[in-house]
């Protein structure tokens, strides 16, 4: 299962790690930092249920929305963005087709409310290529035919990008782990592994043999 961390600043693991064993004072300070962080993103008081102003920073651009607090980040991107690269497939954090980066960390956009994504830098698949120049991951996906119908592809490209950002030369086992939160019904997984190896500058084995029927067996 791919980790779906809460917002940085609210990261429970970091928070708990920061606690140490008996540092109540530190905890209180952390708690205040958390509250400050929250207040920056959202004004105090209850939000909704009607539409509220929401500002998202997407692919380096600030965008204003008026959304009900129950709208997910995926919905906001796709139906109000409109950035339709991230795909809606399961809508319940099970398939990874909606994967985006939140401050560089991989998350499922269907599992985060848009209102909670405020104050963070969101990168979608549309934000990877700069000036029409594909990233090595995108180019490797094309070269290795790591896509078929392509509906899962934005998610796999984001998952592989996140992996290589933190681990520039992953092993095949690490690629399998990093991409195991993404599903592909066409079953192009073997080529995804190849693409991730290729994008990280590693050798890719040829696994197809073509035999001409006319030739002697």
């Amino acid at each position: 299962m791919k980790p779906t961390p809460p917002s940085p600043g609210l990261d429970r693991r970091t928070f708990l790690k920061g606690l140490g064993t008996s540092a109540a004072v530190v905890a209180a300070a952390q708690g205040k930092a958390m509250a400050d962080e929250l207040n920056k993103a959202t004004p105090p008081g209850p939000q909704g249920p009607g539409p509220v102003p929401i500002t998202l920073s997407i692919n380096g651009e600030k965008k204003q929305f008026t959304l009900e607090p129950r709208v997910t980040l995926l919905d906001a991107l796709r139906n109000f963005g409109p950035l339709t690269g991230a795909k809606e497939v399961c809508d319940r954090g099970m398939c990874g087709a909606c994967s985006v980066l939140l401050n560089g960390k991989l998350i499922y956009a269907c599992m985060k409310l848009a209102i909670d994504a405020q104050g963070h830098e969101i990168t979608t698949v549309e934000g990877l290529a700069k000036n029409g120049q594909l990233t090595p991951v995108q180019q490797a996906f094309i070269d290795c035919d790591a896509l078929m119908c392509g509906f899962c592809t934005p998610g796999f490209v984001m998952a592989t990008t996140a992996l290589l950002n933190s681990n520039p030369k992953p092993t095949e086992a690490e690629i399998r782990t990093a991409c195991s939160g993404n599903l592909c019904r066409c079953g192009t997984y073997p080529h995804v592994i190849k693409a991730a190896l290729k994008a990280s500058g590693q050798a890719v084995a040829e696994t197809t043999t073509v035999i001409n029927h006319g030739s002697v067996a």
Partner: protein
Amino acid sequence: MAAWPDSPQSLGKPTSRVDGVAKVTGAAKYTYDVQPDGWLYGMILRSKWPAAKVTKIDLSKAQAMPGVKAAVLAGGEQRTVRFYGQELAAVAATTKQQALDAIRAIEVTAEPLPFVVKEDDAIKPDSPPVGDGPNLSQPKVDSKGDPNIDALFTSAAAVCEAELRTPVQLHHALETHGNTVSVQGDHVVAWASTQGIFSVRDGLAGNLGMPQSNIQVICDHMGGGFGAKFSPGVHGGLAAQLSKAAGAPVKLMLTRLDEGLAVGNRPSSIQKLKFAAGADGKLIAADVENHGSPGISGSRKTAGGGGGADIALPYIYNFPNVHSQQFGVIMNTGPASAFRAPGHPPASFGTESMIDDLAVKLNMDPLQFRLLNDGNPTRQREYKEGAEKFGWTAKYKKPGSDPGPIKTGIGCAGATWGGGGKGSEAQVQINPDATVEVRCGTQDLGTGSRTVVAIVAAEAFGLRPDQIKVKIGDTNLPFSGGSGGSSTTASMSPAVWDTCQNALTALQTQTGVADARGAAWPDACKKLGINPLTAQGKWQEGFSSSGAGGVNFAEVEVDTETGHVRVKKVVAVHDCGLIINPLATTSQINGGVMCGIGYALYEERIMDRQTGLLLNTNFDSYKITNIADCPEIEVILINMPERGVIGIGEPAVIPPAGAIANAVANAIGVRVHSLPITPAKVLAALGKVPNVTAV
């Protein structure tokens, strides 16, 4: 016979997809992504009962809600619904959230009726009738050879008899079914996630009572179909009715839950198989009986039940004597539809399991037993090539003889499929600036058909595939049929080739250039002056054929303490005539293996006997394979250009389940008789836990 070029430049070369950039950047617009101006969000209210008499559906509260622009009934107010998930009504609203609220505000009054959702229950004479009579169909009976088949079993050297079961498998294409329909007066534009733009057009024309010529269906990119996406569906008709009522485009894409309920599945099978062979290892007789359920789409009056429940038994083997009976079982579950190689994966699993058991009984190597009994010369060669690559002889051990708690086993299985094509048309436009546009009303389901068009045109003109602009997925383009049964490449490639040959001839005649191909191309095009050249063409005999084989070798590891099965390696050997793009062909075969692993080990639609509801509603509980399940896959392609183009989509998915089941039996020394081969079934087969039947 007309022929493809002897020394092709583009055909047969690994070619990356011409729409690859669009797909890796998020620029590719799928039906799910299309957002015409003023579009509304459509959503369907479905029956929460597996069977009920509906007396009232009150839309008034929903209609009065904020953002709601239209609400329609799916099939009248007073009606009988016959499965959980059957469509009752639909709404269109400005946002998804408003649509969701409106759906919840619709009030339905209904009286629940008795229902049945399990094959074993539905077969019983006292089972609640799903339709107007018994749930069991008339048998479809087939026989050949000696009518007294029982006597042959008595005298045979080896007889194997078993009941084998396969589950209902759900398609679960990642892009759910759906359409965006814009009814504008007497003209309609519909974006469809479909395998057949023309069949969607004709379906919508019927639904709206409009001429087919007034409807344009577009499918630029689509997120997988696997056989279930040919008609506009009930949901497409509802999108059209909502658009008409609201006066705005309506996007109605199904939810993942909907996808498991109402838009198709692979029928189940309960196969009673009895095979006999002589001491010489030759097959003698097969007595087969199958009960399969296509849900409500079965018919008791049709022999075999209809709805796709009958399967190809005893599959690929040459039994001189066969007695076969096929029954359909109707249940209160969603309708079946074609699913990648309809009827073949279950038949392959059942048949290949019994073939291996017979070989073991005769003390023969299962591969040798197949070579002795499979008369197909292509598969014979495929078995030999594959066995060498796989290392079959060195790896084969007696069943269950691997020591230790984690046991390795190997198995193999074969496939057959028709494929082939016809009927496609195409058009090409050559511009004075040397650009080329090829137009064909086919669609690309992810198979790479758009790239195939580019490769074939590039071959004809001596250009590179990336120099060809390909327009597909629009009913305003020349006709091409639905993409099913591995027929697309075999249908459109000859049409594109014919069109390009006509264009080349016209270009050369018009410009006086003797050979306009390759380096001469830009100058020849320039000589056209100011008018582009347009040419038509169509599918011609001689460039395609039908009939493909295919075999799989699988190696698995079974943990006899946990029951977990891991597929370690698969060698997939396939033929599909002339291979146009080995890269995309490999992808298709990889995908067939992965889907086959899902069918073998994980996938099963589970209906609840008590409530009649679907229990595994999303990917957390309906498990499809993920990248961690991916074995080492080696693909061997037997290229047969002399046969023309055939198609590979279906054969690739047929043999994995049989090969894996045989590998599991070889590893642990006992057979698991039903798919999916779950840890619980493995442990039960080993006698370590009680045999649990579904509740």
